C-alpha cells in the first residue's frame, strides 16, 4: 500500500468489477442507514415493538406493497385519508360527510374512523354512520355507538357489530339457500365485510364474487353530544389500502419499509462495529503473539484456538437471552466470539515481518519492544486489516441475523432484519403467502453480506502483498 499510495489503491481497486459492484451496494446500504430518519420516521425505529403506536397509524395488516398494482390485471385500493365536510344542523348535532372515489378492483382493507373530542367526565357522545353506495343503496347504522372517551377509534372490520350489519345488508342479495348455508356453517367469520361494502349488489356479494362497484361512496356520520361543552375537535376517516407503501405491512400493521431502512443502520453498526473491534483486538493479539514468541506465543495460540472452537450460535442464544439483546450487548457478545478469526492470519504476517532485517536493525538501534511492534510491524499489517475488516463484517451481520431470527427482540427495542424475519416466522408469513414480509429482509441480509465480501475480495487483491503483481 505504501508503494501504491492512496490514489494507487483506489486505481487498483477500480480494476476489479466485483469490487466496484460491492462498493455500489455498500454505498446504497450506507445511504439507507444515513437517510433512515428521512426515508422513514424515527418513531418507526423506537416504537417498532409498541402495538399502540402502530394501532394509531391506521395501517392495513399484512398487505402487499403498492407497486404490485403495476403487475397483474386487478388493481388494489391504496391507502387514503379523507377530508371531512362538517355541518352543524342543530346545537348538539354534528353532521359529517366523507366522500371516497372507489376505482380499484380489490376493496380496501378497512375503514377506520378517528374521533377526537374534549368530552367531559360522566358525559357521552353518540356516533352513527351510514354508508351511501354509488348505486344509491344505503347501509344503515353501520356504526352505532355511545362513548365517553375523548379519543375514539372505530374500525369497521374489527368492531363488534359493524361487520354484522354489513353482512345483513349483503345477505339480502343472496338466495335463501346460500343464506342458510352461511348461517349453518358459520362462514361469516371468514368472510370479508369490505367485499360487501364495495361489491356490486347481486348474488355472490358476500363472497366478493359479484365484482367491484366503482364510483363515489359517501360516509355520513352523525355525532350527537349531550352538552354543549363536549366539542368535537377533529374527525378523520382512513381508508386502509389493500396495498401499502414500498414494502407492504406485516400482520401487526407495521410498515415494513421502515423496518428494512432502520434495519440497515443496525446491520451496519453491528457488522462494522464487531468487525473493527475484533480485528483491532486480533491485530494486537496476533502481533504480540508472533513477536514475543516462545511460550507466550504457545499460550496465546492455544487460548485463541479454544475460543474459536466454541460453538458460537447456541451460546450466543443463551447469552443474548440472559442479557437483553440490545445493539450494544450484541456487539459485545459477538466481539467475544469473533476476535479469534483473524488472529492466525495476522500472526503469520507478523511472523514474516519479525524475521526481516529491518526489525533486527531497529532492535540494534536500541528501540524498545513496544516501539518495534507499533512502528515497524503494525504499520505493515495495517493495510491488510482493511480487507480483514471487510471479510469479518458479513459473519457478524449473519450471526446477528441468526440470533435475532431465532430469539426475536426479547425486550430489545431496535428493529433488525433478523427480528423482522422472526416475526414473519411467528405469524407463518411463508405459509400465508406474505412474501413481502420474508423476501426483503432476507435479501437485505444477503446484499449486506455480498457487498462486504466483494469489497473485501477486491481489497484483498490490492493490499495483500502476496497477490500483488
Amino acid at each position: 500500500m505504501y508503494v501504491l499510495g492512496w490514489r494507487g489503491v483506489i486505481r487498483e481497486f477500480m480494476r476489479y468489477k466485483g469490487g466496484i459492484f460491492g462498493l455500489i451496494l455498500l454505498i446504497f446500504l450506507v445511504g439507507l442507514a444515513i437517510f433512515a430518519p428521512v426515508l422513514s420516521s424515527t418513531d418507526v425505529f423506537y416504537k417498532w415493538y409498541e402495538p399502540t403506536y402502530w394501532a394509531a397509524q391506521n395501517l392495513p395488516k399484512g398487505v402487499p406493497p403498492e407497486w404490485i398494482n403495476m403487475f397483474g390485471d386487478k388493481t388494489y385500493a391504496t391507502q387514503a385519508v379523507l377530508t371531512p365536510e362538517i355541518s352543524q344542523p342543530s346545537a348538539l348535532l354534528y353532521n359529517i360527510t366523507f366522500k371516497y372515489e372507489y376505482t380499484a378492483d380489490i376493496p380496501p382493507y378497512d375503514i377506520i374512523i378517528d374521533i377526537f373530542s374534549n368530552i367531559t367526565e360522566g358525559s357521552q357522545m353518540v356516533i352513527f354512520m351510514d354508508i351511501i353506495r354509488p348505486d344509491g343503496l344505503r347501509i344503515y347504522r353501520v356504526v352505532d355507538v355511545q362513548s365517553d372517551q375523548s379519543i375514539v377509534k372505530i374500525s369497521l372490520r374489527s368492531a363488534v357489530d359493524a361487520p354484522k350489519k354489513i353482512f345483513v345488508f349483503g345477505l339480502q342479495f343472496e338466495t335463501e339457500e346460500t343464506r342458510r348455508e352461511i348461517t349453518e356453517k358459520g362462514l361469516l367469520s371468514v368472510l370479508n365485510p369490505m367485499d360487501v361494502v364495495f361489491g356490486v349488489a347481486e348474488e355472490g356479494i358476500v363472497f366478493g364474487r359479484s365484482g367491484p362497484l366503482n364510483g363515489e361512496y359517501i360516509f355520513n356520520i352523525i355525532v350527537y353530544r349531550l352538552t354543549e361543552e363536549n366539542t368535537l375537535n377533529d374527525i378523520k376517516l382512513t381508508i386502509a389500502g389493500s396495498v401499502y407503501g414500498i414494502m407492504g405491512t406485516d400482520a401487526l400493521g407495521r410498515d415494513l419499509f421502515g423496518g428494512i431502512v432502520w434495519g440497515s443502520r443496525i446491520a451496519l453498526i453491528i457488522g462494522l462495529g464487531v468487525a473493527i473491534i475484533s480485528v483491532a483486538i486480533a491485530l494486537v493479539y496476533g502481533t504480540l503473539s508472533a513477536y514475543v514468541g516462545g511460550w507466550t506465543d504457545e499460550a496465546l495460540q492455544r487460548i485463541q484456538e479454544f475460543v474459536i472452537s466454541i460453538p458460537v450460535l447456541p451460546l450466543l442464544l443463551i447469552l443474548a437471552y440472559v442479557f437483553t439483546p440490545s445493539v450494544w450487548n450484541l456487539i459485545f457478545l459477538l466481539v467475544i466470539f469473533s476476535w479469534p478469526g483473524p488472529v492466525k492470519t495476522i500472526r503469520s504476517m507478523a511472523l514474516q515481518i519479525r524475521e526481516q532485517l529491518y526489525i533486527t536493525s531497529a532492535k540494534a538501534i536500541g528501540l524498545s519492544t513496544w516501539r518495534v511492534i507499533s512502528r515497524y510491524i503494525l504499520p505493515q499489517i495495517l493495510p491488510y486489516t482493511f480487507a480483514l475488516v471487510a471479510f469479518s463484517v458479513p459473519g457478524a451481520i449473519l450471526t446477528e441475523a441468526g440470533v435475532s431470527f431465532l430469539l426475536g427482540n426479547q425486550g430489545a427495542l431496535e428493529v433488525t432484519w433478523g427480528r423482522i424475519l422472526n416475526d414473519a416466522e411467528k405469524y407463518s408469513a411463508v405459509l400465508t403467502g406474505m412474501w413481502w414480509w420474508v423476501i426483503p429482509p432476507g435479501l437485505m441480509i444477503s446484499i449486506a453480506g455480498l457487498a462486504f465480501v466483494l469489497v473485501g475480495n477486491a481489497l484483498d487483491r490490492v493490499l495483500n502483498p502476496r497477490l500483488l503483481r
Partner: protein
Amino acid sequence: MSEKLLSVEGLKVYYFTSGGTVKAVDKVDFSLYRGEALGIAGESGCGKSTLGYGLINLVPPPGRIVDGHILIDNVDVAKLNESDLRKKVRWRKISMVFQGAMNALTPVYTIGKQLAEPLTIHTAISYKEALNKVQEILPLVGLSPEIIRRYPHELSGGMKQRVMIAMALILNPDIIIADEPTTALDVIVQAQILNLLKKLRRELGVTLILISHDLSIMAEVVDRLMVMYAGKVAELGKSDVIFSAPSHPYTQGLIASIPKLGEKKLNYIPGLPPDLRNPPVGCRFADRCPMVMDICRKEEPPFFEIAKEHFVSCWLYR
C-alpha cells in the same frame, strides 16, 4: 598500540536448535584498538556474522551468548540486561551496517524518518533537529540531503547501503561493525562503498570491524585480519603480514584460492567444514589440512604468538 576499545575474552555463542546445540562461536578472544580496522574473514557458516551480532548482544533466537566477556569501558556487554543494552550499548557504543542493506530499511517510512530514529530515541533532540543532523551527515556518505523525503524502494542498492552507513555513523559510536557491506552489490558499487569506508576512516577516524568472506575487500580496507574457521579463530595478525605470508594452513588455502588473472585453474580447499553441533576433538581444520599431524586430531591447538601481535592456532608453530 593505541587505546584498547573492546576486548573479547572466551566468547561462546551457541544456537540451541531442536537438532542439537550449534557452537557457532566457540572461545573467541581478540581486542580492538581505537582507530583501527579489524577484518573478520572466513567462509560461510564459520560464525563471523554471529560474532558480529554477539558484540551487540543481539544474537537472534534460538541463539545466545553462553559464556565469555565483551568488555567496553570495563562494562561487560555480555552480562547487561536488555534495557541497559538498549540505552547504553547499542548504536551509542557499537553500531552495525547489516548484511543485505536491501532489507535493512523498513518500507513504510521515509529515509529521513528512519535515519532520525536513533537520534530521537538516544538523544534529547527534537525530530526536526534530528532531521537537520541527518541532512548534515548525508553528504558525508555521498548522498544528497534531499533523499530524506524518499522511501527505500525509490533508492538503488548502493544508495541504500550508503544510507545504512550513514545510520551507523549518526550517533558517532566508538565502533562500527560492517557485516558484509558489499555483498549483493555489483563490482562498481562495491568499489564505491569500499572507498567510502576508507574515506570515513581517514576523515573521521572510525574504528571499524569489517566482516566479509571476500579477502580482496579485506586487503583493501583492514589493518588487522582475523581469520575464523568453524567458530574459532585460526589466525590473527597484521593484514599485510597475513596476506604476504599466511601462517595457518587454512589461511594459506584461502589466500591461494583467490582467483588470479591468467591462471586457468582455480585453487580450492577440499572437503567441508565440520558439523558445528558435534565438532571434532582437536583442531577443527584437521580433516581438511594438508599438513595434518597426529596431535591435531587429539588436542586443540592453543594460540602461538609467532611474531609480535601475530597469533596462529596451529600445532605447526609449537
